[in-house]
Structure formats: C-alpha cells, structure tokens
C-alpha cells in the first residue's frame, strides 16, 4: 500500500515539474537571452547559461529611446485604469447583486453585451471620436474607453451575491449607511475577487500593444510595450538580446504585482471565512 502511494507521489511530482517547466521555460529563456551577446544568441546548440552575463544589454535597451517617458505612461495609464475601474465596478456590482430596481435585468444584459464586443470592432469609431475631441496627444484615449470593465462587474456581482443577506441586514440595523456597507463589508469580504479583477486588469493594460498602437502617434504618450517593439529591426537581423532585455523590464512589474496579489488572495480566503 505504501509503495503504491510512493509511485503516485513520484508520478505526481514528475507531472508537476513537467508542467512547471513548460510554463517557466520561456521566462528563463528570455532572461538567459537578455544576458547574452548577439553572437551567443545565434549559437547552436543554444547556451542556457550565458558565458559572461551582459548586464549592459539592459542599459542598451533602456537608452535606445525615451524609456522613462514610456514607463511613466504605462504606470499612469495602468494605475488610473485600475482605480477608476474599481470605483465604477464596486458600486455597480453591489447594485446588481443586492438591489431590486426597474430595468435591472435589461441593464445587466447591456453590461454583458459590452463584455462580448471586442475592441477590434470599436477602435476605429473611438479613434475618430478621440481625434475629433483633440485628445490624441494625451493619455486619455488609453484610459477613457476602459473606465468600466464589464467582465469585472460580472465577476464581482457573482461574488457579492454569495455574501449572505443577513450580514447586510445586520449592518443596516446598526445604522450603517450603504456606503459604509459597501466599503466596510462587501469590499473586505470580496478581496479575492477584487484582487483577481485588479490583476487581470493590470496585466491586460500593462501588456496591451494593440490599443495604444492605434490610439497614439507620438512618443510622448506611448507605453512601454510600444517602446519595446521599436527595438525590433524592420529588415535585417534583430538584436534579440536587447529585445529580451526590454521584455524582462516589461515583465518585472507584473511579477511583483502578481506576488503581491497572490498573497492577498490567500489571506482574504482565510480572513473572510467563506469557502
């Protein structure tokens, strides 16, 4: 019996390692390439550990354009999008989950429809509108269309609906106003959902290439993703080591946020007492 268990444990571990490797390999490959010389990147068989780590690749990548501006734009856009989305989503999801009002289902259906329309359908009219308003030279075309997040409203509503009515009733009896209920009860109890939505939102806006490519035409308002795509050669041999150094810089904030969020998710699960 014990032997049997051991076999399963081994199979289990091996499978986990295989899956882990499949996911982590591209990352390691990227980091390794970012520390190689151009000659080394083209070697076959490829070197996994760089012979001499080329830390200057990072300097090269970051000095090849106004990367401070790109990073600032990425930060401003991503953080404002998340803050605005949370401010819009929480009350909206609360209303959809806990209130009965006229036209609720129609409105919620509208939210779901918004969720299903891809950005590729709307970008031309939005661009024309933004150009008409003279906003193309600002960061607003990257923020305004994302003030609300239909997927987030949907997810939060489902989560809020699980929170027992009794808790809210009890708070009302204690004279807590709706704002307080939302802020002091709903929000802390749904931290996992909030963290998930915020993380998704962060990753998708931080990594977004298509939308800023369409909505910007000057370097002053461009995010990091566009800056890094500039490192590629249009013709000829691309400097993969420099491109990968740029990508490492792009990925690091996501990893930091993820580490922070995953902790949050675990803690919230323990704290809220909801299974």
């Amino acid at each position, binding site marked *: 019996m014990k032997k049997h268990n051991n076999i399963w444990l081994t199979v289990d571990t091996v499978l986990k390692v295989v899956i882990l490797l499949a996911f982590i390999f591209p990352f390691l490959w990227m980091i390794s390439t970012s520390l190689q010389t151009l000659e080394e990147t*083209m070697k076959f068989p490829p070197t996994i550990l760089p012979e001499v780590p080329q830390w200057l690749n990072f300097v090269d990548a970051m000095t090849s354009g106004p990367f401070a501006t790109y990073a600032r734009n990425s930060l401003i856009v991503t953080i404002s999008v998340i803050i605005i989305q949370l401010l819009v989503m929480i009350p909206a999801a609360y209303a959809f989950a806990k209130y009965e009002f006229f036209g609720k289902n129609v409105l919620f259906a509208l939210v779901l429809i918004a969720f299903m329309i891809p950005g590729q359908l709307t970008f031309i009219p939005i661009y*024309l509108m933004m150009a008409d308003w003279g906003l*193309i*030279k600002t960061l607003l075309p990257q923020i305004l269309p994302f003030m609300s997040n239909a997927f987030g409203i949907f997810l939060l509503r489902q989560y809020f609906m699980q929170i027992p009515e009794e808790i809210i009733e009890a708070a009302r009896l204690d004279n807590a106003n*709706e704002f307080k209920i939302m802020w002091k009860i709903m929000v802390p109890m749904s931290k996992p959902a909030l963290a998930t939505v915020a993380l998704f939102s962060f990753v998708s806006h931080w990594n977004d290439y298509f939308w800023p490519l369409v909505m910007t035409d*000057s370097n002053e308002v461009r995010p990091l993703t*566009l800056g890094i795509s500039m490192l590629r*050669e249009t013709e*000829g*041999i691309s400097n993969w080591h420099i491109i990968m150094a740029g990508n490492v810089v792009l990925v690091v904030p996501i990893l930091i946020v993820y580490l922070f969020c995953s902790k949050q998710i675990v803690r919230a699960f323990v704290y809220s007492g909801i299974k």
Partner: protein
Amino acid sequence: MKKFFSIFAALFLVLGILAACGNEEKTEGTPKDTSKEPAQEEPEGKVTIQFWHSLGGVNGEYLDAMIKRFNESQDKVEVVGTFQGTYDETSTKLQQAISANTAPDIAMIERAYVQMFAEAEVLEDLKPYFKDSDVKESDFVKGLMGHSTFNKKLVSLPLNRSTPILHVNKTMLDEAGLEVPKTWDELKEVANKLVVKEGNEVKRYGLTMPYDTWYPIAMISQSKGKFFNDKKTSVDFVKNGIGKDVFQYLKDMQNTGALFYPPQTDSGNIVNQMFSSGKVAMMFQSTGSIGGIAQQATFDYETAFLPKNDVYATPTGGGNVAMLASSEHKKAAWQFMNFMMSDPQGLQQFIVESGYLPFTKKMAESKPIQDLWAKEPNRKTAYEQLEYATDTNKDTAWPEVMHEFFAAIEAIMYDNADIDKSLDTFTKETERILGQ
C-alpha cells in the same frame, strides 16, 4: 437610503472622470508638448514637421540621427520623427489618421502601398517642388522610381530601398570546388551538390529564402513574366506557364533537400541565422541584411546577382517617402525632403550607416559611398543589380492580391498542394479583386 446610495454612485463616476482629467493635465504639462503646440499655430516661429516612419532598432537610430542633423543644420524647421510600427502598421495607421485629420506632414510608405494612397489622392505631387531644390528628378536611379509616379504625378521618392540578392557562403562553395551560380540550372546543380545528409536528415541545405512574395516575383521576372497583365485585369504569369515553372523549380529543390523553405513566423530572421551559422550555403535575401551578416559571418561572405532564367531581374522593396496633401507646412516639409535627398548629411550618410541602396547617381559617386564599396564590395553588387530592377506587381489592389498570393505560396510550399490548381484558384481570386 437608496437615493443616498445612488448619489454616491454618481459621485464615484464623476470622481472617475476627474481622475482621468487629472492625468491628462500631467501629460500636457510635459515641456515637450507645450513647446510644440504653439509652434504649429504661429507661422513666424519654428515650424514643426511630423514624420512617420517604420524603422526600429539600429536603423531607427540611424534615421533619428539624420533627423537630428537636419534640425541642427537650421533654425526654421523642427522635424519630429516617430516610429509607427512595421510597414503594414504604419500604412494602416496612416489610413486611419488621414480620415481623422491627424495625419503627419511626411510619411514613409512601403513602396507597394504607394499606389493605394496615391489613388486616394492624399499624396502631394512633388514635381513642382523640384524647381527650388538641389536635386533633379533625372538624378534618381530609374529602377527605384517604379512606384514613384501615379497618373503622371510624382507622389513619392525613395528612402530606404533594398532588393533581393544572392548571399553566398564562398568558403563552402570553394571547399566543394563550385562556382557562384549565374543561371537557374547552375543554381540547382550547385545547391544540390552542397547538401549534406545524415541518413534522411538534412544537415546542410544548399539554398534558402524567406517566406515572402518577393522571391517568387523575382523568379517570375527572371523568366520574362509579369505579375499583372498590362490591362490590370488578371495575373500574367499563370496562363503562360511561367508560374508553374517557377514553383516546380522550387518544389524540385525542396524535395531533394537542396532548398530549405522556412516556417512562416519570423522567416527572415530564421534564414539569416541559418546562413550566418553555416547551415545553408546560399540564400535569397534582402540587401538590407548585408550589414548584419557581414558582422556575424566567420566565413568568406559574398553577394551576387540573383541567377537568371531567361534574363537577370530583381524586384525592389523597402520604403518610399511621401508628403501628405493635407500638410499645412508643405514648404517646410519639402525643405526636409530636399535635405534628405541632396545633403551629404541627409540620407547619403544614413545609407552609408544602414546599408540601404543609394538612389541618386550623385550619392553613388560620392566619396563616402565609394569608400564603403571599396571596403565592402558586396554592397556594390547590390547597386549594380539595380540595372535589372523591375516591378510588375504595381496596382492599387496589390495589398489585397498579395494576401491571395501568400495563400497560394503557402499551399504549394507547405501543404504540397497541386501547383496548377493553386495558381488557378489564385488567378480567380485576383480577377475577382481586380474586377471590383
């Protein structure tokens, strides 16, 4: 209570908008923006010219350096160069910007897209500008002007131009006692002789080329064929059997292992790397790759004309530069274009650095270029091949037809589809597109 809540909800929304506006102020407050805006409104001050281009990486840095040289050479015009993505992305962005009235003054347009923009009448006719200019229309190398005129208007000038060329690992050929091939027959023979096999696995290929329409088009021209017929109602090269010959030739070589046809994604980089690392002896590839390969190659590296079938021929590629008819500062825009075309510090210097083709006789005869050629004869070969440059895929519908041609290449080269059938389907699709 509910009312109270709805007020809060409304407040949140307003706050959200305010927060967004706050950010806008921050970006508008950057010094660059404030200095630029008023300049566009005051004609007496410095005029700002927006220049969109598709050059990233090292070539992008060379281009930026040229823009800087222009800005420092005078104090009337300030050119702002902005990278807008690949050729395709730049072209799409341009279409979008033209309809939204946010178009730049000058733009780099991949030569095959020029006709499409010219037909929409959004490009300025440059002929009148040559009057007060340091360069004459007749100075330009003819082979590179194929996409420059449309309905007798001169709508674009060459900028970063290239052609395909034969890249040769001379060391490998010498070892095998082979000469650089000059004809298709020789190419087939040499490529096959250079193949190294271990069992069924090919260790070394004879020839490769990127997945692109460029190379089949080159081979069509080398067989005296044309891409479109003269009336632009159909393709020319299918019914006369030339298309079949071209693809049969490629397929034969692919089947013996002489030709390595790369996977679609990033094929240009893949073949470059295979060639540089000695996995393939010869390569059809852009002249734009000469600089990178010369840096990488540890063997005797040479370039040669693309081998001829009936005649020598090569299509051209790369970007042209055009002035947008909507520009409000055409004089200033021309001042910059004139600088690019005629000043030794303009595109001439960019070409020396980047390895694109010189496009005026004056440039080709200039000392920096002559010095470069003496040092790197491979680049001279590319210029000399321009004598045989011809482009037969000129049509406003080319971008659309191109996708169909890619589909045919895909079917034949990857899926071993029947050549005749694939080309027939392609012809029908092309006729449908051209008939629209």
